[in-house]
């Protein structure tokens, strides 16, 4: 009894520990960039240069800063218990929509377009990535697994893209009410 009680009192620590390292890293990365930009922005006000130049530089830096802040605001890590939906699209047309939580055994999919571009996608439980592609830059393969709310894996030469979104499961209440 005392052991279970002890465990439950440290539950919050378990949650913090369970927070994936990547999420904290992403958050930290954005904060660093934003603080850096903010510092430069404040410093620019005191630099001695022509007024037009200073105003223009201020405008450019605030534009960049605003875009980073917007990204931070709109980027939400996947909520626990929500469905991870992978959307695979080419030319903006969705080809495949996979619920990653319902995948039981790993499998691969091969997508080929009419110009001979081929992308091989590996799907496993809660995990999706492009494993091979015949494009010249291979950036989609180097991208690695796609995270929910994170950057989508893009194969620009083939106009091929994988994004993962998290969808909250409809509660029973929404049906019953």
């Amino acid at each position: 009894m005392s052991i279970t009680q002890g465990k439950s009192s440290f539950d919050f620590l378990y949650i913090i520990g369970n927070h994936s390292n990547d999420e904290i890293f992403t958050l930290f990365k954005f904060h660093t960039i934003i603080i850096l930009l903010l510092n430069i922005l404040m410093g620019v006000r005191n630099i001695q240069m022509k007024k037009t130049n200073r105003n223009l530089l201020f405008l450019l830096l605030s534009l960049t800063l605003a875009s980073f802040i917007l990204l931070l605001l709109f980027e939400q890590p996947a909520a626990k218990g929500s469905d991870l939906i992978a959307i695979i699209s080419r030319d903006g047309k969705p080809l495949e929509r996979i619920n990653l939580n319902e995948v039981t055994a790993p499998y691969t999919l091969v997508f080929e377009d009419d110009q001979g571009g081929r992308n091989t996608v590996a799907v496993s439980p809660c995990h999706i990535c492009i494993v091979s592609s015949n494009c010249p830059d291979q950036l989609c393969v180097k991208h690695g697994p796609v995270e929910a709310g994170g950057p989508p894996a893009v194969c620009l030469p083939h106009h091929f893209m994988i994004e993962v979104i998290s969808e909250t499961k409809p509660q029973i209440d929404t049906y019953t009410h």
Partner: protein
Amino acid sequence: MSSTKRLVYLSLLICLSLVIYVVELGLPFPLPISGAKLGLANMISLAVLILDGPGAAFTVLILRILLGQFLTGQIVSFSFSLCGGLISLLGMTFLHQCLKERVSLWLLSMVGGILHNIGQFCVALWLMRRMALLYYLPFLLALGLICGLINGLGAQFVILHLQKLKAKQASHSFRA
């Protein structure tokens, strides 16, 4: 400048920016964004814009992109280069015509860099038609800022040397 001299002068500059373009394609760029590079060839367009006006700059830019496609054979990047380059040069021309001497060269180049990346991003958005692509926009803007700064500083050197060339040419034609 006579039309033959102008032809030779502009071809020389196109050749210069083509060489930079091709050499730069061979350099690896550490960021995992497709097609991201310094865009050093644009410093020639910028220098020509300052020295010879927008007409010559557009000629150099468009011919450089067209010939660059023949040399490297990357059909994918054609629409990206053209759209980004044109938007960036249009913006820089507008700013240069409006503010003239009041805007410094490296700042002009920073505006160009940001506009270049916005143009390329619009093409990517038009091709892929997925809003998830917006994730890359802040990084592209920051990258455009940094690359623009580097290009602007490079353009300063190019202008310095081209001015020397032009002065020599002027004195030569005067003697002849």
